[in-house]
């Protein structure tokens, strides 16, 4: 059986609007809709899907390659898991959540640059509604301002490109840009800035702090992990498969990415609150991801995006629940919390250690391969900077995790249950989902070859001159 990928966009959209008539079972719409989407994703085959019967480059196409397919899978699974967990919070947000899902799927699938803009706007509106559910309207407004400026820039860039090349189709655009490079740098920069607002690149990321430092278990994973990941996938798509960027622009944008990496890690090091640490570390990670994307490490950036997305998802989700239970996310007040919650503690720890790139977890092999490939292109200073930021990251990550365990003999157990035992359904669901994700990080940490191979196959031929040489457990080149 084969399904049309447009279903992953259309289905949630239809449900989002029909739901209005059935307010009582709104939650059911959300959960079923997102589960149905996961099911659909399993039956999507790779290929090009025309919309409305017009052949490209005139009509809109959905481009389903391995890159889009794996991203869709991870995104929809994470989204569905979240809807199951946080039904209470999502009650008033059913429509906007379903719209968000549709828009994010559309962003990943579309093969048309203007279509992408439409999805970008829809996704942003949905995200603003989701962010305002915390009742901190000031921060939601901040996000709205930033994202409107961003999408305006995107549109401006798009207009310039259309004027120059006369097409909005991604594949066609790529061909034309290859044929006549140069001249489109301003447009590329504008589009980059438009997306950079969404992927939290400094200095465009002023909104992130307000939205995520107060994030609950619904906003955190949604904006911090799922949205960030999906937008980064789009960034990877545009700056690997579509645009031909001049070396000078690459250098300029890489500097921004590097500043983000360094600044983000330093800001996280400076924070004493759990969610602030997570959000700054997310900012830093997106700097690294963009650095890889811009410099043509497509496979590596892809696997880094997906693994970061999962790790951040677990950590934001748990931090949301922790704030609910303890009433604070100041690390000093949460000492010994995990001792009463060993399994959730394990999940959080595994995600954190994987983010920090420690062995036995998948993050290690990703980081190792990044460094190895950067060094293979005869650069020593870039790996050195990445290692120094990793050092900072490792220290604050372990400081947070050790504090949360605080296993020492002289500290009293807080006795706080992260998820109240009376809420058995949520308790088991959260345990199951976070443990599955963290065990996946261990399993892929022990057997990274499969994941690395998949990433290689999905993105290996995206950039011809930068084939990644992957070191997995099977050994690497030169073995």
């Amino acid at each position, binding site marked *: 059986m084969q399904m049309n990928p447009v279903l992953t966009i259309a289905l949630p959209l239809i449900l989002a609007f029909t739901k209005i008539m059935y307010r009582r079972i709104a939650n059911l719409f959300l959960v079923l809709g997102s589960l149905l989407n996961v099911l659909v994703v399993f039956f999507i085959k790779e290929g090009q899907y025309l919309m409305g019967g017009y052949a490209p480059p005139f009509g809109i196409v959905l481009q389903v390659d391995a890159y889009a397919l794996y991203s869709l899978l991870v995104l929809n699974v994470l989204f569905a898991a979240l809807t199951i967990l946080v039904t209470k919070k999502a009650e008033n947000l059913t429509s906007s959540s379903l719209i968000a899902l549709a828009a994010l799927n559309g962003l990943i699938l579309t093969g048309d640059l203007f279509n992408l803009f439409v999805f970008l706007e829809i996704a942003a509106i949905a995200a603003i509604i989701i962010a305002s559910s915390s009742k901190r309207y000031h921060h939601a407004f901040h996000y709205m301002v*930033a994202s409107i400026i961003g999408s305006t820039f995107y549109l401006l860039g798009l207009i310039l490109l259309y004027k120059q090349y006369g097409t909005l189709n991604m594949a066609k655009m790529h061909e034309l840009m290859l044929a006549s490079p140069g001249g489109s740098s301003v447009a590329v920069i504008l589009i980059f800035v438009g997306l950079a607002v969404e992927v939290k690149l400094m200095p465009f990321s002023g909104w992130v702090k307000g939205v995520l430092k107060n994030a609950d278990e619904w906003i955190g994973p949604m904006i911090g992990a799922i949205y960030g990941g999906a937008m980064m996938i789009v960034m990877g798509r545009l700056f690997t498969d579509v645009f031909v960027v001049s070396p000078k622009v690459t250098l300029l944008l890489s500097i921004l990415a590097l500043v983000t990496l360094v*600044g983000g890690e330093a800001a996280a090091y400076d924070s004493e609150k759990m969610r602030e640490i997570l959000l700054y570390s997310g900012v830093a990670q997106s700097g690294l991801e963009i650095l890889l994307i811009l410099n043509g490490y497509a496979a590596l950036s892809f696997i880094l995006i997906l693994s970061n997305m999962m790790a951040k998802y677990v950590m934001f989700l748990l931090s949301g629940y922790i704030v609910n239970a303890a009433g604070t996310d100041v690390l000093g007040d949460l000492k010994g919390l995990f001792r009463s919650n060993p399994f959730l503690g394990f999940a959080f720890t595994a995600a954190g250690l994987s983010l920090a790139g420690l062995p036995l977890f998948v993050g290690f092999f990703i980081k190792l391969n990044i460094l190895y490939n950067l060094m293979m292109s005869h650069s020593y200073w870039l790996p050195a900077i990445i*290692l*120094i930021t990793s050092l900072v990251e490792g220290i604050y990550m*372990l400081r947070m995790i050790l504090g949360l365990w605080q296993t*020492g003999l002289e500290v009293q157990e807080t006795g706080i249950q992260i998820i109240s035992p009376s809420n058995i359904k949520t308790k088991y669901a959260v345990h199951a989902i976070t443990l599955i994700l963290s065990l996946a990080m261990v399993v892929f940490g022990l057997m990274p070859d499969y994941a690395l191979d998949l990433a290689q196959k999905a993105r290996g031929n995206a950039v011809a001159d930068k084939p990644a040489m992957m070191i997995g*457990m099977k050994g690497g080149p030169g073995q």
Partner: protein
Amino acid sequence: MNIIHLILGLFLAGIAAYGIGRLKPAAASWLTLAASWAALLILFLGGDTLAGGNAWGLLAFKMTPLGWFFSMTLLFVYSTNTFFNLSVPAAPTRQAAYPMLYLISLASTIGVFSAENWLALFIFWEIVLWSSTFMIGFGKPGRGSIIYFGMSLLGSFMMLFAILVMGTAYQTFEVKGALMAAAQSPGPALLVFLLMLFSAMVKLGITPFHIWMPEAYHEAPDHFAPVLAGGLSKLGAFTALMVTSFLPASTLMAQPWQVRGLPLLTYILLTVSAVSIVIGTLMAIKQEDAKKLLAYSSVANSGYIMIGMLMGTPMSVSGALVHLLAHALATTVTFMVMAAVARQTGTTRMDELGGLLHRMPITFLAFLTAILSLVGLPPMLGFVSKWLILQSLASQGLFLVAAAAIFGSIGSLLYAFRILSTVFLGQLKPKHRQVREAPAVLLIPLLLLSGVTLVLGIYPYGLVQYTAKIENSLGFADTVQITGLSIQGNNGNLNALLIMGAFAIGFLIALGIFLKAPKSRKVDLMDTYTGGEFIYSPELYSYSTNFFAPLERVYAGLPEISRLYEALANRVRDLGTLVQYLFFSPLPSRTALLISVVTILLIWGEAI
């Protein structure tokens, strides 16, 4: 049975120990004991020819004499320490993870010592790092575990960088092959050499990377500190020795500058190690806490090990290896004794202790043996190693370094005597009248370890012979020589048995005098008065605070290196604050401004 089975078995035993530990903590401790002793037995019987095996390609193993020596040393420390795990005070907290982490770190050390390529070595190295970090966290609350982690991570990343440089420049990750290739072609070899050595120095706790040692040792739970101090720091010596023998500085930097026939680089590193001895000794003399004192003693002793390896002569390398074993055995005993004392009295602060000799005589004997070995007095193993190292320093003509080494030995007498006299000698504090000897289960490892120290000190020939074998496998042209019962030095030979004989005669004479002479009368601590007034608080009688005050005053103003690291950390914090202020303001207008201005700048930058 091959190495993979051994490592995998220990990993699985660790996971099993977690499951069991949640139900029945004592059973998990017994499992750790059984698993580690079984591993020790397998490794001992298998010898250095134990089959390697290949799990996934990257994780390939091969036992070498050097790896076997290190694995045996660490396994011995780990498995004797399992007796202390048994005595974990009835934990008020869930510590089920402790046995698991213990076995995982044990398995990983074997992985480090038998890995065939650098990446596998690094993976295990890091697993040891984070598992031990969590184990330190089981102790006193504080910054110790995170300082340990941060410094070690700095070291690991230096090593990773060097590994990747070798991997990219020479297209191989093989442990020996990569270093040999680096030795062949200069290129980035110097970078590799320095980074590798620095990372080893972090682990060994050589100045200026030693700041984690006192903090971590002090905070580590008493039943883990012996492993941390006696075992884990030796990982650094392993990589350092491989680097200095396969990629010697003499091939890297033979020209243009030489000091006394050694490349300048080697001489500088030797000086750093000598400084480490001096600083470790001076700081140890200053400490009020026995565990911190012993930590600084480790800093000093690592200096000896490093000197032996850097000199790279057969005799010095043998000295380094023997000293490594001697230090591992002795330090483990001293920390175990502290654990036993802490268990019986509840403190390791020296000014709160005293006169325990009468209450814990066997513990005292074990401690005496270890201290004598640390100081380097016959008939203990520490004497043999210090003799070897000093011999090679003298024959190389490195008198300044030798002077530091001798200073360290004399200084160690001072601080070792301090623990001895303040914890075990002197008068018993009234509150410790009820203290008893440590339970038998804790005395077993103490007697085992100090017995080995003594036996090897009297008869070190087999051990030295084995270091000669290691030197052979490391490609040394000639090795340390033993003829009959004397180890050959350049200006004198060492006959340990003869020394033992002389020592025994002296001991017998002293024993005769002791038995013949009139006995001393035991005076209770409170059996005194001052200026006609009786004092009722025993602490006021303590003579152990500021024990060496006149000496300490000489170097009281010495700057502390930890300030430098603190300053660095604060700069990172400052940068973070700045970034938060500049780019994460709550004002939407500022975000809008930033987006616009930076976009304009980007477009402008593209145009010029």
